[in-house]
């Protein structure tokens, strides 16, 4: 086996490594490695303590499937967990809640006695649980080193491990006095430990199933040959079934209420959205953890001697086969689960002890007299001392009560104790009548039952050696038998205790909530928590307070705990948020509430209330008044929201009307311009015809040749009128979008040839050469008639502007990756520089310009542009071509 000092050395190295990792992560708290939903989800696996790591195999070996309950509870709870936690996290962030005790006391009006009671419950429930972890470390250490009983605590390695854990927790957990501040480094190490323990556990599972045996079916065949196999894999009777359901309920509560669970999921939550990922990652984690439990248990039963504790099968298995390194790995996995559980629990408890027990009960007076620096130091020291006392206390609990309680049962007892918080927590979230007095009474009733049914028999058995108490009841009263209270005789002790304590706790809570009314302050916070659906509902406005308060005094109180700098900064933000005058001496309800919230992070909800109420004079408000004011506030907020919504709608509507109106004006103007231009375009040839006709009519004696010239002009102008009219109609049709293009595949080369052939006669007459490049088999989708119109128009323009005889027109086709570029160039007089911009506009000149465009009707190119754009193409004139005119037509190959 391994020497003790070597194991200690490994442990020290491991802790140092975690410490370095934690410091590294703390420095990068906002980086994507540390601040992400995975780290958050994995840190929730602090739930899997040594009890899980070792104990579930033990329970699977002795009691079969019931080990699954502590996982099924959380898995079933998770959808609900998501909904409830979202609200709890929201409230806790707003109110700087730093523990479950703070949260419950906040809900019931910052009552310090509730916070204290919850703290006591948690300490009572968790300290034995921590001692259970130490027990696991100690026993596994002994197995690994094969050492025997230790003589004194100075020789006991567990003691030193406990001290190391306390140092680790104190160093990481108490860096700031504000307990609601996140500890990113610490939570990162917890997430890493969660990964390690899972990996090691699965490793040993694979080892047991596939190395020691030939897989799951081999294991099953061998184990089913054992005699009590049936018992271990099925529910033998109704009692076991009921037991199963209660266990699930118990662990369901645990995932909300265990201080370390609340700490990891609420206090350390950096982003509400992380809950979403956690709601599936965490159950998946638990599932993975359970895959091999039953197989390891079977392997242990088959291979290991009967007298070995089944809790430690996972450690015995590799050691028995001489795999020391694997054994050490298993030990480190167990140690990881211990470290995370102990550190987070101690941290959560120490915060509760300082903020809900020590400070509000007495120590506040001391703090009030001192300066802020000393106060911060004192608060930190209280927590550090608390951490040490808790862990060392747990160690002594372990040493003194080292009875043969299994890991599983101590864990369950802790769950039952913590479950006493369930009515106050869950019902308080949704029912505004639940009040503080009822909480205290309910928890007390539940605790008494738990004590009577669980602790008392244990004490009687261990200290008094009195077995009659359990067997026959006190003084022989059978109805009061602690394990069969009121004759309930079919439940195991833990389930039995859970059942009765919950019945009493719940009944007492409900009855007192109904018959007693809480005071106005309680009701105020109740309304706040129950109705909290958004951050807005929890602002300072939602808080009713009446009385006399002065800013300088409140400020003084804040400075004492927060220091000058933080106080000034916080108040600045507050004043800016509500637009208040910082010089105003009198404080209002909002400032009082805000100051309480500020202090809550440092000294807890109850103490914060005490500090603030010591510097303000509060006048009681009656409950109906509180409700009325709250209702009015809500009404105002609602009305404001509605008005805002309506104003926004109106604004939007008027904007869209404005846009519509503007576009109508533009369209109207365009229509006017168009009509104007149409009239104008028609007038010129009409004038020409009219003048020529008048001349012909008045001059019969005109020479025939001249007469013929006038008649020719009339014919030409009449033709021109016809062309203009059809162009106008064409353009109107194209620009209104009524004309659809009849797009079909065509050989571009064929269409170009048709266009050139069509203008051949004209070109021939002027003695112009037209050359055309060939590109065979280039098929594009377009409307051929329309495309022909474009090509013909461009060619005709060129023919019009080149000089006779030496005019040359060139058509060139270039295929590119996505499109085809067709160039029409000529050596004519070119487009005048000033006209370049306008040639594609329809009658642009009509109103804004008095410079006439050079091309006849002025519509040909506008029509071309419309046609090409309807094909998702482009047409433009080369503005830099100096030797004539050059036009580019680009057509897309695809997606026409």
């Amino acid at each position: 086996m391994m020497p003790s000092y070597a194991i200690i050395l490994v442990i020290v190295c491991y802790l140092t490594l975690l410490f370095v990792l934690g410091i590294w992560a703390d420095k990068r708290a906002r980086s994507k490695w540390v601040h992400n939903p995975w780290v958050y989800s994995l840190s929730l696996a602090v739930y899997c303590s040594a009890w899980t790591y070792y104990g579930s195999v033990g329970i699977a070996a002795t009691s079969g499937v019931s080990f699954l309950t502590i996982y099924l509870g959380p898995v079933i709870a998770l959808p609900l967990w998501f909904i409830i936690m979202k609200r709890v996290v929201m409230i806790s962030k707003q109110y700087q809640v730093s523990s479950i005790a703070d949260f419950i006391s906040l809900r019931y009006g910052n009552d310090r006695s509730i916070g204290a009671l919850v703290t006591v419950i948690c300490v009572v429930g968790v300290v034995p649980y921590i001692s259970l972890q130490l027990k696991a470390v100690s026993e596994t250490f002994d197995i690994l080193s094969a050492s025997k009983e230790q003589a004194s605590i100075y020789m006991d390695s567990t003691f030193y491990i406990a001290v190391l854990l306390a140092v680790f927790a104190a160093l990481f957990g108490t860096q700031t006095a504000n307990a609601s501040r996140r500890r990113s480094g610490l939570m990162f190490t917890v997430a890493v430990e969660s990964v390690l323990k899972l990996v090691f556990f699965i490793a040993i599972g694979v080892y047991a199933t596939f190395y020691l045996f030939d897989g799951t079916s081999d294991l099953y065949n061998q184990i089913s040959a054992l005699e009590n196999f049936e018992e271990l894999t099925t529910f033998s009777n109704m009692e076991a079934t009921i037991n199963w359901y209660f266990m699930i309920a118990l662990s369901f509560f645990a995932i909300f209420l265990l201080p370390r669970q609340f700490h990891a999921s609420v206090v350390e939550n950096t982003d509400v959205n992380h809950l979403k990922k956690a709601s599936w990652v965490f159950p998946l984690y638990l599932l993975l953890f359970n895959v091999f439990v039953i197989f390891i248990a079977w392997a242990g039963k088959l291979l290991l001697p009967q007298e070995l504790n089944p809790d430690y099968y996972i450690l015995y298995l590799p050691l028995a086969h001489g795999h020391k390194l694997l054994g050490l790995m298993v030990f480190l996995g167990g140690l990881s689960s211990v470290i995370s559980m102990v550190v987070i629990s101690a941290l959560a408890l120490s915060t509760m002890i300082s903020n809900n027990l020590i400070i509000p009960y007495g120590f506040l007076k001391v703090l009030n007299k001192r300066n802020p620096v000393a106060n911060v130091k004192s608060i930190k020291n209280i927590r550090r001392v608390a951490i040490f006392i808790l862990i060392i206390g747990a160690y002594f609990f372990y040493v003194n009560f080292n009875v043969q309680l299994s890991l599983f049962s101590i864990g369950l007892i802790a769950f039952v104790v913590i479950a006493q918080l369930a009515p106050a927590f869950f019902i308080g979230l949704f029912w505004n009548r639940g009040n503080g007095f009822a909480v205290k009474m309910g928890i007390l009733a539940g605790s008494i039952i738990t004590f009577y049914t669980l602790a008392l028999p244990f004490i009687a058995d261990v200290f008094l050696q009195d077995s009659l108490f359990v067997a026959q009841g006190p003084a022989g009263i059978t109805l009061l038998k602690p394990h069969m209270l009121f004759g309930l005789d079919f439940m195991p002790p833990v389930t039995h205790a859970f059942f009765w304590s919950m019945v009493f706790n719940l009944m007492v809570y409900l009855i007192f909530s109904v018959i007693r009314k809480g005071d106005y302050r309680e009701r105020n916070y109740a309304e706040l928590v129950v109705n909290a659906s958004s951050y807005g509902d929890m602002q300072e406005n939602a808080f009713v307070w009446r009385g006399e308060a002065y800013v300088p005094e409140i400020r003084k109180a804040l400075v004492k705990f927060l220091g000058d700098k933080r106080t000034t900064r916080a108040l600045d933000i507050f004043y800016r948020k509500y637009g208040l005058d910082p010089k105003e001496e009198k404080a209002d309800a909002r400032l009082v509430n805000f100051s309480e919230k500020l202090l809550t992070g440092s000294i807890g909800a109850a103490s914060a209330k005490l500090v603030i109420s010591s510097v303000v004079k509060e006048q009681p408000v009656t409950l109906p008044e509180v409700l009325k004011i709250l209702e009015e506030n809500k009404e105002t907020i609602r009305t404001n929201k509605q008005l805002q919504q309506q104003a926004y709608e109106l604004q939007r509507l008027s904007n869209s009307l404005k846009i519509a109106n503007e576009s109508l004006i533009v369209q109207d103007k365009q229509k006017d311009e168009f009509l104007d231009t149409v009239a104008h375009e028609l007038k010129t040839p009409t004038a020409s015809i009219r003048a020529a006709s008048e001349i012909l009519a008045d001059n019969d004696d005109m020479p025939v040749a001249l007469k013929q010239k006038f008649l020719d002009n009339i014919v030409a102008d009449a033709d021109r009128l016809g062309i203009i009219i059809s162009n106008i109609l064409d353009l109107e049709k194209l620009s209104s979008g009524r004309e659809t293009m009849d797009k079909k595949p065509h050989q571009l080369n064929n269409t170009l040839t048709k266009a050139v052939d069509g203008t051949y006669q004209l070109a021939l007459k002027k003695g112009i050469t037209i050359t055309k490049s060939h590109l065979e088999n280039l098929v594009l989708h377009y409307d051929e008639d329309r495309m022909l119109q474009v090509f013909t128009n461009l060619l005709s323009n060129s023919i019009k502007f080149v000089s006779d005889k030496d005019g040359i027109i060139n058509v060139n086709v270039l295929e590119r990756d996505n499109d085809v570029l067709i160039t029409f160039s000529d050596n004519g007089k070119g487009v005048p520089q000033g006209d370049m911009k306008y040639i594609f506009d329809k009658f642009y000149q009509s109103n804004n310009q008095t410079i006439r465009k050079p091309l006849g009707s002025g519509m040909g190119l506008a029509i071309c542009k419309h046609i090409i754009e309807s094909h998702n193409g482009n047409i433009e004139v080369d503005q830099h071509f100096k030797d004539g005119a050059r036009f580019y037509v680009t057509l897309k190959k695809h997606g026409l």
Partner: protein
Amino acid sequence: MKKILIVDDEPNIVMSLEFAFQKLGYKVFIARDGSEALTLINENIPDLIILDIMMPQVDGYETIKQVKTNPAFAKAKIIFLSAKSKPDDIEKGLSLGADAYFTKPFSVKSLTTAVDNLINN
């Protein structure tokens, strides 16, 4: 012999006007746009100018402004002959100093009568 300058870029209209005024005994000059017109006026001041508004290069408005700023051309009467027929257009034309405004299409007879009147008064 009285001189008339016709400034228009529509050859068919110019042809009709040239025929009509020559027949009435005027000496007719022709310009295709404002810049041509201004060159011609400099060489030979006409008694009357028939001026289109929408022409390439230099338009009718610009042309009349140039003519009116030079006192040497003061005796030249000006008639606008344009397709622009909105009241605003006519008012603008007259405010620039034109003696008459004819809209296209127009009656040749009315135009020649107006020219006669302007030149002989």
